[in-house]
């Protein structure tokens, strides 16, 4: 008898209410060092699995540049966009989204250039990882970020049922305002992931590896004059073609993620999935 998912979720939320809207960025992001649970060195593999509650999971990785110049983006996502992201995906027919959050920094200058959450299917749980992220103080000033660590982690350290069971690719979004390093040196791979053996790999090659099981996108935020310059966009266009997306208004980033997933997610069976008929204007309204 009964069960009441919405009632249960509301109860869970009531237990975890944090009253974000009245808090400053420092109060939300309380971590002042890398959270041990987000340490990639301990993350051999992050799994995104189907469950009875979520039988057709769709794995979505959101890798966010959390260095100084970008700190307001995670803040905005936690405060406003995130609760709607999962809801609007579900409303549009993606019933079982599972989102993994990665924090990305500069692997030359930063102390924690890769921070990894877990795949979560509710806003509350995802929020747990988002608010634990350690926001790096400054950028490196070298006009490059280690976004390719996200491709590396996705390619080699995730295991996702949507691909393994149903040949539906997951989604990987890197979000930032800088070009990407041309390679990942072997020592960086060894230092920041759970492996002792590694060879230097080019960004092209690691993206290709990630593309074997993910649709790979990069979102470039044009949040100031500096970020609008061509030199800040680097060679993303060459790397990703149409999957390089410029975002003039950073507040729309969660909505764009939802739209991209909805447009590109291939239904598993023609009969049970209705997401191809979804109306984008509905997503607009939700976010």
């Amino acid at each position, binding site marked *: *008898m*009964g069960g009441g*998912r919405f*009632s249960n979720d*509301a*109860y869970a939320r009531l237990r975890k209410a944090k009253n974000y809207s009245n808090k400053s960025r420092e109060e939300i992001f309380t971590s002042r060092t890398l959270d041990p649970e987000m340490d990639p060195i301990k993350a051999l593999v992050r799994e995104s699995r189907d469950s009875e509650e979520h039988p057709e999971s769709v794995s979505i990785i959101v890798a966010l540049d959390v260095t100084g110049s970008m700190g307001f983006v995670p803040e905005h996502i936690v405060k406003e966009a995130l609760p709607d992201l999962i809801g609007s995906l579900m*409303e549009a027919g993606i019933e079982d989204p599972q989102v993994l959050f990665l924090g990305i920094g500069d692997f030359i200058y930063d102390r924690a250039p890769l921070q990894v959450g877990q795949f979560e299917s509710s806003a509350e749980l995802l929020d747990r990882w988002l608010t634990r992220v350690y926001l790096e103080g400054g950028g490196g000033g070298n006009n490059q970020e280690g976004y390719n660590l996200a491709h590396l982690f996705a390619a080699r350290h995730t295991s996702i049922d949507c691909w393994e069971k149903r040949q539906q690719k997951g989604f990987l979004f890197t979000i930032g305002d800088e070009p990407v390093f041309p390679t990942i040196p072997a020592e960086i791979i060894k230092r920041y992931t759970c492996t002792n053996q590694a060879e230097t790999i080019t960004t092209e090659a690691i993206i290709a590896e990630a593309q074997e099981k993910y649709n790979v996108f990069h979102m470039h935020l044009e949040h100031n004059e500096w970020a609008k310059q061509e030199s800040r966009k680097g060679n993303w266009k060459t790397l990703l073609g149409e999957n390089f997306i410029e975002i003039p208004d950073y507040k729309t980033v969660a909505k764009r993620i939802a739209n991209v997933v909805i447009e590109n997610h291939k239904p598993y069976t023609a009969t049970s999935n209705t997401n191809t*008929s979804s109306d984008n204007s509905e997503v607009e*309204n939700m976010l």
Partner: protein
Amino acid sequence: MPKCSLVIDLGFGDAGKGLTTDFLASQHPKHSLVVRCSGGHQIGHTVTTEVLTHTFSNFGSGSLLGVPTYYSEHTTLFPPAIVDEGNFLKPYQPKLYVHPLAMITTFYDIAYNRAIEKQQQHGSCGLGFGTTIARNKDEVYLYANDLQFQWVLQQRLQSIKTYYKTKLEHQPKAVQDYYKNELKDYNEAYFLESCKSLQPFYNVAALSELASKFEHFIFEGSQGILLDTQHGFHPHTTWSYTTSKNAVQQITSHLKTISEIDIYYVTRCYQTRHGNGPMAETEPVNLQNNENEANVTNEFQGVFRTQALATELLNYALSCDAIHHQNLQSNKHLVITCLDQLPRFSYANLFQKLNTNFKTVYGSYGPKRQDIKKLFLQ
């Protein structure tokens, strides 16, 4: 002339009340009102359309058609969940009318429910429905009407907190600890805030005020007759009347102009039970085509059980329901759902064993209202 339809579940719940309500609401959506006359926010009534499959808990199952919902004084509401589900359903502009004496569930009711259910395992969903009714029986109240007055609401919450504090003193330590742990992260300001933010979805009104505004009143029952507080099997019963008792009371006291009453008795073509308690002693069934099953194993209810339909239990449930509308003229209908899942089921055999005469019999062959067909006897 206005008419009434009652949707009543003949089993332990999960029969297809959402589907049946949506089907009835689709006949005249503009002139219909769905009336929730038992149960509360713990229900899970699933409706499937071309674009969406949604399990309703806080809104009636006609909401996707734009049909508003009325919650009677026999029901419970949990404000934060209304806000959540209301926001999710925003594109459909869901609307609630609520009787001023509808009972409000608080965090304390849920925490206490969970703490004792962990010990007793009566089959509760862990959402505080039963504890809310029990608290009201003990005359510690919080009504829908009170939500409009912030100071009153705060005082009421304080009395509820005290009420459970006293109750807990007589409980084992494990219960006390569980309760305390649930309360650890609770933020009362957020509860008060969600009571306030209900406004877009919510009107306080009595059913008699709505009597002239609608032509079709669809009473969406909750749970099933076999879980009824009077007719179910202690201790695995719910704290509400799941027969047509409440609907009949509403009709006779508030809807005096009603000309026609139709009762739709709903059952799956096999026996189901979600939650602890006795189950029919019939043979197992092999289901097909049931990937869309909305019942999943959960922490408080456990696994979802299925077996062949027990005719004795159907006859029992029908006889129980008849007690509550003896003096009322009504047409009886039967809705047999999930026929696509059990190809060997013979409804002709079933009718021979039922002691009730039905005016119409419907069968559903899929999750949508379009999958409902009128069945004819051979």
